[in-house]
């Protein structure tokens, strides 16, 4: 099946099996180095990519569902300004995820930041300055990735700090 889509900023026409998982397409057909997992249904949470600006598990997306989609892997995401907020948060806390889950965890945090900073507010209103963090919700989101290299307290701290950087950057831009 021929599938046209945009992956990491490149318009591609892929010739793959229609039911091939996106994670395998990225790893095997495109040689994407930022994905290193195919857990065969164990829900490891290590194959996160951005599909149409929303985080998704690429092992659960078949080729026939990416037609016309804009896909961003960590390879292109790490060049973005949004990534800097999280990278700075890692530096500020002195801890970061291990090499195995770094990419996926970072994209999960990005998804949380997008949600928390109200980037997707339906009415288009700017995000509230000090949105109270729903810690339970964040813990649930972070538990999507099963790697045990970090504990939740550290991850929550990183999310809080990254959110602070993100909101400050937005306020500076607006003003």
């Amino acid at each position, binding site marked *: 099946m021929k599938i046209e889509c945009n992956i990491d900023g490149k318009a591609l026409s892929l010739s793959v*099996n229609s039911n091939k998982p996106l994670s395998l397409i990225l790893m095997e057909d495109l040689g994407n180095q930022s994905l290193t997992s195919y857990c065969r249904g164990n*829900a490891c949470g290590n194959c996160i990519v951005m599909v149409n600006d929303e985080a998704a598990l690429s092992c659960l997306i078949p080729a026939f569902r990416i037609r016309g989609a804009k896909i961003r892997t960590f390879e292109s995401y790490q060049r973005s300004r949004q990534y800097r907020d999280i990278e700075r948060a890692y530096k500020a806390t002195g801890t970061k995820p291990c090499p195995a889950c770094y990419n996926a965890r970072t994209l999960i945090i990005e998804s949380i930041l997008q949600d928390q900073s109200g980037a997707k507010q339906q009415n288009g209103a700017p995000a509230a300055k000090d949105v109270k963090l729903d810690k339970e919700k964040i813990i649930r989101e972070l538990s999507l990735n099963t790697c045990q290299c970090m504990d939740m307290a550290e991850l929550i701290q990183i999310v809080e700090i990254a959110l602070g950087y993100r909101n400050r950057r937005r306020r500076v831009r607006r003003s």
Partner: protein
Amino acid sequence: MYEGVRSPLIYTPRSIGEFSTIIARHSQAILWAGGTHLMSRSDYYPGEARDGIIDLSYMEELKRITRNDRYVEIGAMVTARQLLSAGRLLLPPILQDTLRSMGTQIVRRQVTIGGSLCISDERLSLSTTLAILASSAEVKRYDQGKVTTHWIPIAKLYDKDGRLNLGSKSALLTRIRIGLEFGDFQRFVVFGDPIRRSDECGIVALQAKREQNGLSEVQFCVTFPRKAFHISKDIESKLSGSALPIHPEKVNTLSHELVAELTKMHSTISDLQLERARRIFESFLHDLNSQSLF
């Protein structure tokens, strides 16, 4: 394309009418809703879908949410995330808790209501909760060119082991209907990891009406994925009509009766799962008791 692995043909009906035409010709085709369960099987790929795949995501009529005074109807292709955000004001709290328990936001964007209910051999959170709410599913059966529509209570969609039975090999669950009258006491607990360790998991849901220090219309369901889908009419009837607070001895007796029932009807449930389910059930009753004191 690779020799030995034929790329499945993808059919994309845009209406139920088009779907009927396709399913008549390809009765063995795989119905694809969110695809999360299908793709999470360890032997999913490479695998063949000889009769093709019917992608339901283009059928707009399956994505609607409508309501009136008595019930809300949800299309089978509505995702868990959509339902959670749209249904905040009208869905019972227990259903909202259930939807939140279905993975994370990232996963809920893909999980569909219909897909979750139609997993053939594994019952998870949504089936359990809908079984205790006054909910039913519209199922269209396609047999030898004829289409028949049936409304089936969710609790009757599954056998005691939790296996799905839509009444026909070619059937489509199009929408579910949830009554807007529900009890004021609702509890829902999942223990274990239903995705990664479904063998050790259990789901318990209970709802009841509290009136003048008494219980009525108790509905209770306990599920062990792949092992049991258990609705205990006996326990429901013993609890309905009980005065609050329920005596601790009765709480103890009922919880052990539940274990006895489960052991008798489902031999594959482990000791640990049974003990956890029993304790959760007991804690629900203790909760009822403590609330009745205020």
